[in-house]
């Protein structure tokens, strides 16, 4: 069964079309890099998939359920592009991570010892235990990002969606951040959909490229990506530059370049 199925999806803000005729499927175990320039519709697509925005045209199914009826939210982890909680919100890092357990609770949604234990474990896994009692709004951007990642993966989700997760991280933190994501994909079998502008860093982790510019320009594996005339047309003179910056393996047909 496909984890995500999108058919003939279109979306517009007022009268400006943002997405047109989007059809694709995501299989379990994929690690997909979703790329596109600013305004290409990446975040809109993710928000439609997650039901944050309502679809007006087209169909979306998650894990076989229509998004309108979807109820297995604990199987999805989402780390959004920018999270700007109220600046005085008195939640500690621990309390923020534990909020990820809301999707596993019935009514009343009150946390128990198991939720606290899970929170402790995932914070250790994402290296943010040392500041668990600090207020979230007092943490640095990178520390906040780790806390939000911990919240996204606290339920061992089958599908993890990350929207430009590395923007607040310094160079050394980015490496360990992507290693952790890669482990979730390889060891835990999580399917990852990652929006990024950082082509240079994701090439060695992902197995599929998704290039979006209102329409799907390309969706397929890395080797096909290198041979795709659509990709060459889309990126034009920058194609070689992009290929040079992708750390992947195997021969690349563009300009006789070879991958490492």
């Amino acid at each position, binding site marked *: 069964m496909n984890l995500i199925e999108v058919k003939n999806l279109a979306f517009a803000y007022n009268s400006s079309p943002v997405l047109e005729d989007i059809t694709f499927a995501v299989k379990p175990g994929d690690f997909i890099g979703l790329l596109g320039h600013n305004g290409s519709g990446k975040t809109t697509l993710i928000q439609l998939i997650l039901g944050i925005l309502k679809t007006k045209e087209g169909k979306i199914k998650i894990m076989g359920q229509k998004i309108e009826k979807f109820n297995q*939210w604990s199987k*999805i982890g989402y780390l959004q592009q920018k999270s700007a909680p*109220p600046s*005085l*919100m*008195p939640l500690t890092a621990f*309390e923020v991570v534990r*909020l990820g357990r809301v999707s596993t609770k019935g009514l009343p*949604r009150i946390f128990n010892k198991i939720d606290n234990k899970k929170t402790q474990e995932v914070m250790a896994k994402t290296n943010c235990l040392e500041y668990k009692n600090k*207020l979230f709004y007092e943490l640095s951007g990178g520390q906040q990002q780790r806390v939000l990642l911990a919240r996204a993966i606290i339920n061992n989700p089958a599908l993890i969606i990350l929207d430009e997760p590395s923007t607040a991280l310094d160079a050394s933190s980015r490496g360990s951040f992507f290693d952790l994501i890669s482990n979730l994909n390889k060891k835990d079998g999580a399917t990852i959909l990652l929006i990024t502008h950082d082509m240079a860093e994701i090439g060695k982790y992902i197995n599929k490229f998704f290039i979006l510019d209102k329409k799907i320009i390309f969706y397929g594996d890395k080797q096909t990506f290198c041979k795709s005339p659509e990709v060459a047309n889309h990126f034009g003179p920058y194609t070689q530059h992009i290929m040079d910056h992708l750390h992947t393996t195997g021969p690349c047909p563009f300009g006789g370049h070879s991958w490492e």
Partner: protein
Amino acid sequence: MEFLSFAFVWRALIAGALIAIVTAVLGLFLVLKRLSLIGDSLSHVALSGVALGLLTNTSPIFVAIPVVMASSLGIFKITKHTKVYTDSALGIVSATGIAAGLIIAALAGGFNIDLFSFLFGSILTVSWAELVLAAVLTLLSLAIIYVFYNDLIAIVFDENFATTAGVNTERINTILVLISAAVVVIALRVVGIMLVSAMLIVPPVAALQLAVNFKRALILACVFSIIGVVSGIYLSFAFNLPSGASIIIVDLFILVICALIKKYAFKKRKLTASN
């Protein structure tokens, strides 16, 4: 302690303490969700309900509750389905409430003592029926907040995240505005239409100055709110001052102290920690 020997004082203290707790708890969510001024708008709408009650010779509180609840849903629908910012919607509803209230009051023969008691609060004249109503609505509101406690926190923290955590954001927002409407109406008797929003805002803002986690913020907001009500009632009784204004002045005094503690004591603690 002579003032505790009167039954009406005990009624005022019990009703005031209950309302202090529910306004503090609800107010904390509203302040953090940047909906502080919903109390102001809804209290102005309550003026219409109260005036309508007085015009029709019905209990003003019982008429105000459905009128204010309907208006709170109106604010929610306006911001959700039209291109109107929340503060604009609050302004529109607020102005409509005052305008309608003034017209109804004029039809009823102008302002009378009863209407003034709702404008400025008169906790010392709370009846047994109003005390029971305050207790029922307070306990009901607190029970609903308890059941959806973490949904509310998730929505206030980040509404997009809340959606992907399976929280029915529309339902929770609807519950939040309906509880706000009920709480605003029952708080009218304590501080009056003119000051009800201060009761929702000041104790939570004072608590946020000193909070180190969410639970602490809730507890502090309740404690400050109760201190404000009890001290205000005492000041009102002892010095023949308006009860609503006395309560809010005590609340503001607590806020100033909390802000000073935050500025000096917390700063000193941080400096010590960093050394």
